[in-house]
């Protein structure tokens, strides 16, 4: 078999056939993976909710409140948690575009008094091995049970109380900012969330 000649029609047909085949195979694989990907995303969200909130018995995903905020591109997602119809806290998606490589998305769980229950990183594109350490227990532990009015969320370099990650000051700074944003939203909407079940 010799190589096909470089005629216009040959080139057209070759490229057309290749694009059609690859288009169909991509569509097929997409069909196979779209389910697991969606399921994984929801599962991650539910797992994150379980990690950042105290015990709850409602379904925060169903009770989601979307609140317009000047700090976020679109509305902020707020997941309120109740136990025996008493407000026990809320998880808020805090985000910032000021990470070292753009968007950082966190889920911050607050107790009713505004202190931080726990934080989970949902999305980030930080430098592997440096900025990605915001997901590590060692970094997250310093935020637990802290109340932002008395615990300054800026890094120590900027006069705050957060120990920045070595080699990832920008990431640490952005992280603090995202937490602060989530806190501000929580305090603003605290009354509304408590009123939800009454």
């Amino acid at each position, binding site marked *: *078999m*010799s*190589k*096909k*000649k*470089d*005629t216009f029609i*040959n*080139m057209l047909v*070759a*490229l057309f056939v*290749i*694009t059609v085949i*690859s288009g169909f*195979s*991509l569509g097929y*694989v*997409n069909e*196979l*993976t*779209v*389910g*697991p*990907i969606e399921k*994984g995303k929801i599962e*991650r969200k539910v797992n994150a909710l379980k990690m950042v909130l105290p015990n709850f018995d409602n379904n925060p995903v169903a009770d989601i409140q979307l609140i317009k905020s000047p700090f976020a591109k679109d509305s902020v997602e707020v997941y309120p948690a109740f136990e025996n119809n008493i407000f026990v806290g809320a998880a808020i998606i805090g985000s910032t575009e000021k990470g070292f490589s753009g968007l950082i998305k966190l889920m911050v769980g607050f107790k009713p008094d505004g202190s931080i229950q726990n934080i989970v990183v949902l999305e980030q*594109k930080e*430098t*592997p*091995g*440096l900025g*990605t350490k915001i997901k590590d227990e*060692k970094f997250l532990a310093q935020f637990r049970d802290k109340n932002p009015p008395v615990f300054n969320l800026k890094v120590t370099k900027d006069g705050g109380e957060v120990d920045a990650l*070595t*080699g990832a000051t920008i990431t640490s700074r952005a992280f603090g900012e995202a937490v602060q944003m989530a806190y501000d939203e929580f305090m603003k909407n605290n009354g509304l969330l408590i009123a939800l079940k009454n």
Partner: protein
Amino acid sequence: MAEKVNQTQNFLKGIVKDNPVFVMLLGMCPTLGVTSSAFNGLGMGVATMFVLLMSNIVVSLIKTQIPSKVRIPAFIIIIASFVTIVEMVLEAFVPFLYEQLGIFIPLIVVNCLILGRAEAFASKNNIIAAIVDGIGMGLGFVIALTVLGATREILGSGSFFGFKFVPEDANTFILFILPPGAFIALAYLTVLFNKISTKTT
């Protein structure tokens, strides 16, 4: 028999004589970008190896059907399709690795190692030779990335495949997990590799 010896050589050249990273210096973007730990290097290497193998097979199968003027766009479409498949499959079934490698997976498309092998080897050889070449080159890439990742991880964070062997707050050469460390580590490893490989051949 001659054919067999040929294939062994064909296989080994990707690992030693024409190692894509240490000798040909191809595919530097993922090499320098993701190798901040041994595990990341290994994951990236395996993903690249899979794409390389598949694209080598397909290019070798359809080489006679592609007019030479449009061969580059044709190869790129094939490679890009496989990369997208890898990305979707990883996101669906190995989300942990997907999160680690993140933006570097789409970049496999422009990894010149893959296009280079398609153009220089697979489009001129039969399918068996192309498969052997793909596995050999892929393994060479995996080994290089893992060694580079391990070196940087050991020096930079005092751990190996995530297993820490220094105290939590010990001082390590953070430089090595920062981008400049990648260049320094790669340069010294390349010197070392070429010193050893020229001595033995």
